[in-house]
């Protein structure tokens, strides 16, 4: 039941964002609201088994508004800055062709899968690194485009991201 509710609320919120401005009940018309509720219930019923497989008590801690504020601070601060640097870095390497690639393993020490997913996506979008695979104990295999030494510390590969991922999800 919890899985159904979570899937239902997510689909309904998404539907309401997509149809905002269609009528006069706040922002929505009555037919859009009815269609939204029916379609969200349908999609929640179809996907609740999949959602339920990954749902635990810890999943609900994302409702804490403090995490959202930290996440927004992260997304518009260090993440955006590193994304900009990453693009200038790729542009530089495209033009000069200076690469020194390799796949290294880093131990993240994170406690849940949401944090690992956030970290892996952040790594992919930041300078010179691309996450390739996950290993035992939530370690990550990262492809570096310009490797400085053969056994780098986690901080060399992904900067302060582990700290941020821990702050947001734990």
């Amino acid at each position, binding site marked *: 039941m919890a899985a159904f509710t979570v899937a239902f609320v997510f689909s309904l919120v*998404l539907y309401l*964002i*997509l*149809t*905002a*401005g*269609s009528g006069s009940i706040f922002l929505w018309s009555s037919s859009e609201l009815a269609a939204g509720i029916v379609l969200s219930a349908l999609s929640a019923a179809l996907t609740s088994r999949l959602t339920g497989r990954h749902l635990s008590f810890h999943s609900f801690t994302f409702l804490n508004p403090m995490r959202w504020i930290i996440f927004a601070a992260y997304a518009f601060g260090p993440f955006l800055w590193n*994304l*900009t640097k*990453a*693009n200038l870095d*790729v*542009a530089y*390497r*495209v033009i000069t*062709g200076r*690469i*020194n*690639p*390799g*796949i*290294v*393993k880093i131990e993240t020490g994170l406690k849940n899968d949401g944090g690992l*997913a956030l970290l*892996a*996506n952040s790594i*992919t*979008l*930041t300078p*010179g690194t*691309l*996450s*390739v*695979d996950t*290993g035992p104990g939530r370690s990550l*295999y990262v*492809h570096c*485009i310009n*490797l400085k030494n*053969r056994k780098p510390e986690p901080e060399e590969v992904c900067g302060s991201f582990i700290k941020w991922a821990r702050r947001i999800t734990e």
Partner: protein
Amino acid sequence: MSGVVYALLGIGLFFQFMGAIALHRFPDVYTRMHGATKCTTFGSMFIYAGVIVYSALRWMSGDAAYMSMALHTFLVMVMIMVTNPTGAHAIARAAHRSGVKPVNAVVDMLKEESS
């Protein structure tokens, strides 16, 4: 104000173009994924930002239909920031599992540990 829109579109196009060149210049699938994820995500974000600024301007000058366009584009921007690196991760993982070796790699820890 349309100058801002053109500037955003121009920056977006530049990074998309860099991503396309990266596909030609880099030697193997992993290094190409670097160009194909970072540059396309960043380039698309600037193009969407251009669309958002344009529709916000039209919205403020009284055309309410542009509100949903700005909202939709913002939603697409968030979605692409989540799905683009996830897709790249899936492609890189599939490539490594099917035996594609990184060209000129100094070290490949995934290969060493799985074999």
